[in-house]
């Protein structure tokens, strides 16, 4: 990868003794679309909330988050406020409650324009209108004066995206942006994100529990389990040759669209509790290939091909020539 836009190194997060992240190494290149996939509680959202300093005060964060030449962890609030909504913007899962119910849409978009581009008054309003237009809000001029409760879920998410675009970000972190939306609206929003990326050249991190959503939108995927990245690969490669048993399990659990209907290859058991992590590989207790060695230590990511790595002892063994 060329010089990364943002690089996370050994990022850990702890909520009062319960580890949420247990060492994340992840880099995003300028303009690339990275998918971050995993089930609830795996830490995929926490990763980016921690990177941007958006976690509550009781979270203990360690490691490093470098944006260009700047370290974000432990950075002064003024620096973080300049980065957030400026170089890195973020949108969230539930668009309806992510907008402030007592302020008009136009004011909320204009606030970001004032903070990051120094636009005020009529200039901010005109730009806010242009942004609403750009994200496909019909009748943008009148919608500026609407309140969030007057918008549908899909429109609210478009407004969130407009607000994110206000600071001309180099990276947009979209945390489950379509999970709360209907399927046809999800398709609209994913289409919009793709189009905006091509227009603006910004990088995208798409956090999702849905492998399908990620596969259609991203170029590279990182799969997370229990606070770690277990596999990372270009999207086509990941779906063609999933290597970590957890990735294989996720793909197997997805009902197919064609072919005979047989029982799904469900992953047995459930995700371990943060304060009761199994020793060694966290997936071992649910893994069909687990061996004694898996409990001995946390497996390190094994490069399988350029750009493809899996944190699994079995992957390491298979690489050893027979």
């Amino acid at each position: 990868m060329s010089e990364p836009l943002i690089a996370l190194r050994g990022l850990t997060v702890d909520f009062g003794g319960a580890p949420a992240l247990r060492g994340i190494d992840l880099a995003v290149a300028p303009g690339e679309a990275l998918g971050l996939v995993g089930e609830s509680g795996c830490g995929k959202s926490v990763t980016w909330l921690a990177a941007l300093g958006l976690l509550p005060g009781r979270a203990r964060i360690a490691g490093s988050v470098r944006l260009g030449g700047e370290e974000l962890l432990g950075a002064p609030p003024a620096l973080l406020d300049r980065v957030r909504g400026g170089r890195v913007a973020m949108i969230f899962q539930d668009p309806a409650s992510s907008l402030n119910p007592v302020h008009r849409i136009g004011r909320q978009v204009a606030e970001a324009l004032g903070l990051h581009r120094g636009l005020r008054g009529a200039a901010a309003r005109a730009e806010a209108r242009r942004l609403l237009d750009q994200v496909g809000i019909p009748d943008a001029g009148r919608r500026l004066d609407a309140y969030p409760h007057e918008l549908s879920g899909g429109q609210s998410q478009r407004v969130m995206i407009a607000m994110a675009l206000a600071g001309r970000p180099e990276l947009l972190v979209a945390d489950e942006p379509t999970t709360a939306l209907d399927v046809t609206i999800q398709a609209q929003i994913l289409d919009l994100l793709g189009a905006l990326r091509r227009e603006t050249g910004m990088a995208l991190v798409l956090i999702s529990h849905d492998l399908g959503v990620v596969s259609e939108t991203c170029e590279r995927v990182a799969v997370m389990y229990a606070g770690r990245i277990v596999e990372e690969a270009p999207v086509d490669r990941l779906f063609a040759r999933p290597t970590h048993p957890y990735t294989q399990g996720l793909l197997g659990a997805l009902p197919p669209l064609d072919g005979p209907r047989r029982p799904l290859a469900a992953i047995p058991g459930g995700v371990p509790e943060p304060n009761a992590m199994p020793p060694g590989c966290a997936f071992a207790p649910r893994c069909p290939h687990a061996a004694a060695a898996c409990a001995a230590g946390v497996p390190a990511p094994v490069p399988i091909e350029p750009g493809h790595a899996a944190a699994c002892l079995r992957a390491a063994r298979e690489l050893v020539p027979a």
Partner: protein
Amino acid sequence: MLRFFGFRLLRAAITIVMVVSFAFVVLRLSGDPAQIIMGADAPPEAIAAFRRAWGLEEPLWLQYFHYFGAILSGDLGRSMRDGRDAIALVVERIPATLALTVPALLIKLGLGIPAGITAALHRNSFIDRAVMMLAVAGFTVPSFVLGLLLVLVFAVQLGWLPSGGQESWRHAILPIVTMGVGGAAVLARFTRSAMLEVLGQPYIRTASAKGVPWRAVVWGHALPNAAIPTVTIIGFMVGSLIAGAVVVESVFSWPGVGRLLVVAVANRDLAVVQCILLLVAATMVTANLVVDLLYGALDPRLRQRTA
């Protein structure tokens, strides 16, 4: 809009009628005004004459109807005790009561709201715990206990302030503080929980994520939302400006509306009691109406146009 107000006014009228009727029934069933005002050893002829003069020998339901007829024509009757106009009696006491309740309200707002906000912003810190401990104390200690405690310390022990009466502004300090502290405690708790609720909302995270500095997040995004539930309790406090001082006025022998009410109830002086109750109900209803309008101003979700 008109329908909205029509409905509110009707509800207010029903509330007032119920309050007045309830007071009538309770006061009449709990003792004979003639006996109480004339004294137990009054001659029977005097009592009979008193009854005739005040229409007390009529059947209860007829008294009730007469009473309501009079109210509707604007006549709230005269005090059975000294024959003075009930309205005049009550109105002349209002300034004294407001002299206590208005400054007390300012203390409640000025102390309670900032304390609640500070506690919420520093959740689980030393400040939060200290504020909440004081708030729980101020909230659970009844005002007559607090009042007596303050009298004991500042009047009896230290001798700094008078323990009762209405001679100078210094006499007002202890009753005002007594009322203000209790109300501030209630408001602090309420503001804190409203603020905590709002701070946990996704739109607060959105504001931070778009680079709004924390102070501006609190002032521009959290407070306007936290104000919505807090307005209810403030409205209640405004509504009780007139009647909220009954206990404190008694403890500090302050000659306001509250003390008049206590005396009037003890004497079964129906006209005066009813007059005060009407006044209280009217202020409460007005305060509620203002709260409803404020809701609309604060929360766009409640002011949707007629579609």
